[in-house]
């Protein structure tokens, strides 16, 4: 087993037995499906909306080269600098380069999942900069030196008590059990940061090829402030975030809101098409867009699973996943959790190291059914299992099936086996769930089914 796999197994085993943790996830997600279904029902035709969204994304991803060229050209035409990064190291280097060139020191960040993917905060801190996350959930997990627990709700695993303790310890504030007061504490601290920060870093939910804009979806207004006050705005964006036309957003903005959090529209949906333009009151002097590949082209090359690049990161598949709901977000050990994480992580970070995530599924298909852009998530998990085995066959599988075939083809041997099983099960309780129990993997958490006192063949013979 690879280190990532054994870590996952350890985490999952511990967390499924942690009832407090499970109760927390349940509370956090219990209303999700109800509010989402209410908003879905307001659509005249949600299923057709999904199909259209899938088609638009299909077009975007299957003509990615032309769309990206158009996107970059339109951005550059209005004074934006576009950078291309093949991997995480290049992206970090580009961003650090921009900051150093400006002789800047303090950075405010709104939520950037691609930033988590390339470990941007670590790199910025190592380079000597001060980085502050401004999304409330991200700010909380940053203070805890933790990774986000869910890519839409980063601090979903914490109670107000824990957050209050954290703020008391890190910020010296008085304890409180009111989410409102806790939010206001963060508001006060961060207000000052927006005003004093030299650089604002954001992600991008969509990149509009036709007009050369990025679109950011958020509820808090932190991205709006991050992109308004600092002198420089840097946006880090995965190359797959492209949409061909501006009006495509008319479909994607409400769908993202509905599928992600059961909202009609997210609080702020903002398109940025350049730095401050002549005649405008404010805005950054410079706007940089960093396009990140980081193995997305590898996923693109897998035609069968290419639709995983349609993902708009709504988080819907996490919210309905029975595995996510029991083990939570940190167990995966990956930037992108849940079903979509299990599909794309093996492509982004290596199939053999991350193939175990394809088994972190009950294959119930709830994710596929929920996905607003119709990604065939659970079938992709099966395909990854197949691909992993094809790439690196398991040596004992073939002899095992040969032995079984031999057994099934020899009636005498087969009935002897059944008899032995019947005798064996009498003594099994003596070793059940100990180190020498041959079926321990099963009996650890379940009862072994009983062998019937008489097989069908034996019964058939007595009947004659």
């Amino acid at each position, binding site marked *: 087993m690879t280190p990532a796999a054994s870590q996952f197994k350890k985490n999952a085993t511990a967390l499924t037995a942690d009832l407090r943790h499970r109760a927390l996830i349940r*509370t956090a997600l219990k*209303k999700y499906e109800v509010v989402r279904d209410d908003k879905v029902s307001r659509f*005249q*035709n949600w299923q*057709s909306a999904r*199909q*259209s969204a899938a*088609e*638009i994304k299909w077009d975007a991803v*299957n003509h990615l*080269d032309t769309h*990206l060229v158009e996107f*970059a050209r339109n951005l550059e035409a209005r004074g934006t600098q576009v950078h*291309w990064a093949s991997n995480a190291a290049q992206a970090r280097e580009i961003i650090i380069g921009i900051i150093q060139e400006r002789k800047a020191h303090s950075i405010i960040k709104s939520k950037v999942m691609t930033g988590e993917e390339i470990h941007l905060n670590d790199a910025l801190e190592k380079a000597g900069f001060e980085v502050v996350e401004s999304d*409330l*959930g991200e700010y909380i997990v940053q203070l805890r030196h933790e990774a986000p627990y869910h890519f839409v709700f980063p*601090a979903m695993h914490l109670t107000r008590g824990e*957050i209050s303790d954290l703020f008391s310890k890190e910020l010296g504030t008085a304890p409180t059990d009111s*989410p409102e007061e*806790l*939010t206001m504490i*963060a*508001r006060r601290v961060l*207000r000052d940061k*927006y005003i004093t920060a030299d650089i604002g870093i954001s992600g991008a939910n969509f990149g509009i090829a036709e*007009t050369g804009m990025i679109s950011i979806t958020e509820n*808090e*207004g932190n991205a*709006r*402030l991050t992109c*308004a*006050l600092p002198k420089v705005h840097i946006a880090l964006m995965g190359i797959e975030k492209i949409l061909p*036309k*501006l*009006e495509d957003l*008319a*479909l994607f903005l*409400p769908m993202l809101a509905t599928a992600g*959090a059961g*909202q009609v*529209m997210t*609080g*702020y949906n*903002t*398109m*940025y*098409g350049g730095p401050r*333009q002549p005649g405008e*009151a*404010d*805005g950054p002097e410079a*706007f940089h867009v960093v396009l990140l*590949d980081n193995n997305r*082209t590898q996923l*693109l*090359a897998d*035609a*069968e699973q290419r*639709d995983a690049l349609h993902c708009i990161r709504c988080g819907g598949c996490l919210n309905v996943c029975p595995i996510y709901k029991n083990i939570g977000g940190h167990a995966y050990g990956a930037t992108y959790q849940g079903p979509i994480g299990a599909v794309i992580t093996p492509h982004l970070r290596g199939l053999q190291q991350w193939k175990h995530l394809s088994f972190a599924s009950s294959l119930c298909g709830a994710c596929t059914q929920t996905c607003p852009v*119709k990604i065939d998530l659970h079938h992709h998990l099966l395909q990854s299992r197949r691909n992993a085995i094809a790439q690196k066959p398991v040596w004992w599988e073939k002899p095992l099936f040969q032995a079984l075939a031999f057994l099934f083809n020899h009636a005498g041997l087969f009935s002897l086996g059944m008899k032995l099983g019947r005798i064996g099960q009498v003594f099994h309780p003596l070793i059940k769930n100990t180190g020498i129990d041959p079926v321990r993997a099963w009996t650890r958490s379940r009862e072994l089914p009983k062998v019937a006192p008489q097989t069908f063949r034996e019964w058939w013979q007595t009947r004659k």
Partner: protein
Amino acid sequence: MVANPKMNERENILGRIREALSLPAPIPGAHHGEPSHPVSECDAAAHIPEWLPRVGVTFEEQIALFRTNATELKADFLLLDSQEELVAKLREIAAAEGWKKVATHSHELTDDACAALGLPMVRTDNGYEARDMESCDVGISACDALIAQTGSVLVTSQSAGGRALSVLPPHHVVLARREQLIADLPSAFALLKTKYASGYPSLISFITGPSRTGDIERILVLGAHGPKKLTILCV
């Protein structure tokens, strides 16, 4: 060392993309059984209005829908009969909330209304100090449109006094005209395309309700970073 590493990476990425795309992908949604409507490549956008939430055709229906959406979002929406009523309403809110300083920009709707308040003003038109705006009690701005379908206010850096005015002060008051009410999101994008044909503003934003967060135990709190209150006054 390559002469221009930046150009090189661009070509590398595009090259990998082109190579990857030499294999065609299955048609979208194929695995879900028959698509719910015929797949018409690149024509998907044409049908968007038919899938989105329904909006009535009359002004009354649309204003009622906008009001319902705004109420659900905890925004205040008032339909007023005249410019005088709007000024009176604004003075009433100013008195009730004890405003001491106002941030705004120049526009035919905001000019008279803000002047009538008789309060110190920060105008964004010719640049401003961020701290100065931060200390304002309210940001008063115009907008491009009100969208009935979602209860959203459409603003841009050109129409609404820049980027920060609508998010930095703790209360955002939007002044709009009845004619600015539009039905749905597709019409909002159509409007943007015609209105800004000669060049888009650097920021376009759909504001849907006051700033909000659910990051602590998924409990709704208003005013996470942006305004705690959003008031829309329409004449």
